[in-house]
């Protein structure tokens, strides 16, 4: 019994699109095409449609506004990656188990203050760099921790900060591309308030990206 033409339709379209059919399908379709002029015509027309669609694809113009769009996007990116409290808060919150948003936001503000004051002072006046030695810096007490109840117990939370935000706090990473992140440890007290911070120096923190 002759196989109806519709059973070959899918393979016929795929063949016209330039797809690789398996050997069996190719053989069956070939035999059918040899004895079915209607499907032969259909194949020729599908092939012309494929060519025409490729012409449509090739004729698509490029955007005339791409440069302006790129500029706008980069401005938006800089705003997002910059020293924005919410961005820093998100980074901080992501590293903490059981995040409490208000605490993360407060910590972000404190982090900004200490980075801007303490760490920048440590490296002024020459262009600051992260240390090259494979050791961790000492913890720096956060100014906002002054006046808090005495530290009794706590934990250290490791966070990642985009390198891009560091210059805004007076800290630069050189040499290397401006991208990537640096790690820091934040000491969180028994009351879940951050008390101190230290940068973690590793190969990945020396101006390279992670």
């Amino acid at each position, binding site marked *: 019994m002759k196989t109806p033409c519709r059973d070959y339709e899918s393979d016929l379209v795929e063949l016209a699109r330039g797809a690789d059919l398996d050997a069996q399908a190719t053989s069956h379709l070939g035999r059918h095409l040899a004895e079915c002029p209607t499907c032969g015509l259909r194949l020729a027309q*599908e092939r012309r449609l494929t*060519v025409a*669609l490729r012409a*449509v694809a090739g004729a698509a113009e490029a*955007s005339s506004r791409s440069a302006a769009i790129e500029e706008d996007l980069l401005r938006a990116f800089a705003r997002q990656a910059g020293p924005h409290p919410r961005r820093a808060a998100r980074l901080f919150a992501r590293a903490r188990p059981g995040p409490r948003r208000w605490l993360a936001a407060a910590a972000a503000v404190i982090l900004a203050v200490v980075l801007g004051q303490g760490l920048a002072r440590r490296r002024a006046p020459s262009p600051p760099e992260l240390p090259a030695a494979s050791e961790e810096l000492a913890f720096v007490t956060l100014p906002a921790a002054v006046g808090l109840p005495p530290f009794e117990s706590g934990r250290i939370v490791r966070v990642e900060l985009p*390198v891009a935000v560091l210059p805004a706090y007076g800290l630069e990473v050189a040499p290397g591309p401006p*991208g990537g992140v640096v790690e820091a440890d934040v000491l969180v007290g028994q009351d879940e308030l951050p008390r101190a911070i230290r940068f973690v120096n590793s190969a990945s923190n020396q101006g390279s990206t992670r």
Partner: protein
Amino acid sequence: MAAEPPTNRIPDDRLLRLVAAGDANAFTELFRRRHPDVFRFALHLTGSAATADDIVQDVFLIVMRDAARYDAGRATVTAWLCGIARNCARQRLARDSRPAPDELAGGREPCAWGRDSVDPLDGLLRTERIDALRRAIQTLPLPYREALVLCDLQELAYAEAAQAAGCPVGTVRSRLHRARALLAAKVAALAFREADARTVEPEDAEPEPRPRVAGTLRMSRSGTGAV
């Protein structure tokens, strides 16, 4: 640790990880590398360069925000971007919903493949035919149009197109085949209409005289007596 290669040699998925970490250079490289694909996809889907530009901007704003959510195990970066662009395009098309510019509307669409006497695809590579085909693509129902644009214009593999469209591979394949059949029928309708127009109004035919009835009516209304 080996030095980081220049961004133009970093694979897309790694660029996305760098974007997630706040690397502006990686974002720039990803945009320059992939925005033409996103633009063309949006252009073919919407038929408007201005809308396509807006969609490009929307897509990369979302990339900026959600780069960390990209899962290389689930989709290629191109498919992921096309999936975002598809959602943005759908939202814009729904917001600006208006009847599709169906230049072929009216009359029953003939079967494209059953008429041996006229090949509707003859001459399709002429510029005006490409424009007509492009417009015809935009009249396809959206799911079929998406499949056609992803597979035949963007030339994504079925698996990638399925990732972008959020449906099984088999669904993409059947939509594509249906889209091609619909498109062929539309092109055939255009060809028959043009052939019909040539029969009725040959280019070298004398223009028909204007009916005098219209002038008579105008005279009687205006009362000026001028025709």
